[in-house]
């Protein structure tokens, strides 16, 4: 990609974000992106193609994970960007923030096992309708790490059924062979949900960390497939 066509990626930095540099690095290495780090108290996102809300413990996870971050000035800009159809990816704490902000449905509970879970998991791609999965096959199994204490996503039954009907479940936890069942779900989330999208499909949140699985040196590159898919989607939309 030449400099002129490099995607612009905004990585939001909250007080307590700790995967912001990993996200920026993944965007630079996989997307050859022009990355802008945007502070929580800024409003200008810099006309990005993609906004990433990274993992961490924004505002110390006080009250509830994501509850305080939601009121940061930058979130008004993120909500406006998402409302215009802009691509937003929330990873781990970023996913929690998107739920608290109402940009994604549902909410997070403590992990069912009550422990902070830090290990590799397997995800099955359940929907191709997001920019991050458009170039991945439905049913493909991706391996990447999780690291969270509050990733037990849940929603009211009626809301969940609507989401399923609208194809808003993007990733589910599975075993290495792609089947659901015992041992696959690290946190007890409803119906093994690992990642979801909004109705339009432009806002995606997931608990696992794709940005930590973008380099063979770090144990795998399956996470890079999400970013590559985004690049493919962007090419298809805007041409080269």
């Amino acid at each position, binding site marked *: 990609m030449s400099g002129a066509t490099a995607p612009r990626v905004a990585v939001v930095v909250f007080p307590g974000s700790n995967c912001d540099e990993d996200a920026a690095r993944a965007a630079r290495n996989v997307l050859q992106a022009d990355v802008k780090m945007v502070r929580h108290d800024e409003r200008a996102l810099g006309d990005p193609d993609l906004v990433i809300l990274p993992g961490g413990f924004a505002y110390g996870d006080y*009250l*509830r994970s994501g*509850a305080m971050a939601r*009121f940061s000035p930058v979130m008004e800009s993120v909500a406006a960007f998402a409302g215009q159809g802009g691509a937003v990816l929330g990873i781990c704490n970023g996913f929690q923030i998107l*739920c*608290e902000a109402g940009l994604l*449905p*549902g*909410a997070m*509970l*403590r*992990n*069912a*096992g*009550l422990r902070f879970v830090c290990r590799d998991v397997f995800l099955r791609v359940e929907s191709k309708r997001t920019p991050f999965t458009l170039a991945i096959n439905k049913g493909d199994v991706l391996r990447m790490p999780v690291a969270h204490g509050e990733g*037990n996503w*849940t*929603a*009211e039954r009626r809301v969940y059924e609507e989401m399923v009907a609208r194809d808003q479940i993007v990733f589910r936890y599975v075993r290495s062979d792609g089947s659901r069942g015992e041992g696959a779900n690290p946190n*007890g989330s409803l119906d093994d949900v690992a990642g979801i999208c909004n109705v339009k499909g432009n806002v995606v949140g997931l608990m696992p960390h794709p940005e930590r699985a973008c380099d063979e040196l770090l144990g795998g590159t399956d996470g890079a497939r999400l970013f590559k898919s985004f690049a493919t989607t962007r090419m298809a939309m805007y041409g080269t």
Partner: protein
Amino acid sequence: MTVLVKVMLKPGVLDPQGKAIADALHRLGYGSVSDVRAGKLFRVEVDTDDPKAAREAGAQMAGKLLANPVIEDYEVLLEAADAPAGAAR
């Protein structure tokens, strides 16, 4: 006035924390404990003498920030003015 906002997970929403506490109580010998739900209590000082206004302010704060309506219910109470001020300290 002092507004108390009590936040609890909705009935039916899994409470892993409450379950762990119940298990611990069982291990301590409290065999009669059949269920524990863990919640949060916020004690908010509001500069007003109007109970209605204080209550309304508490409800608004609960709806916007203190509780997450997807998973939690809240209850707003006023702390009785004649309660011994130092009782809880």
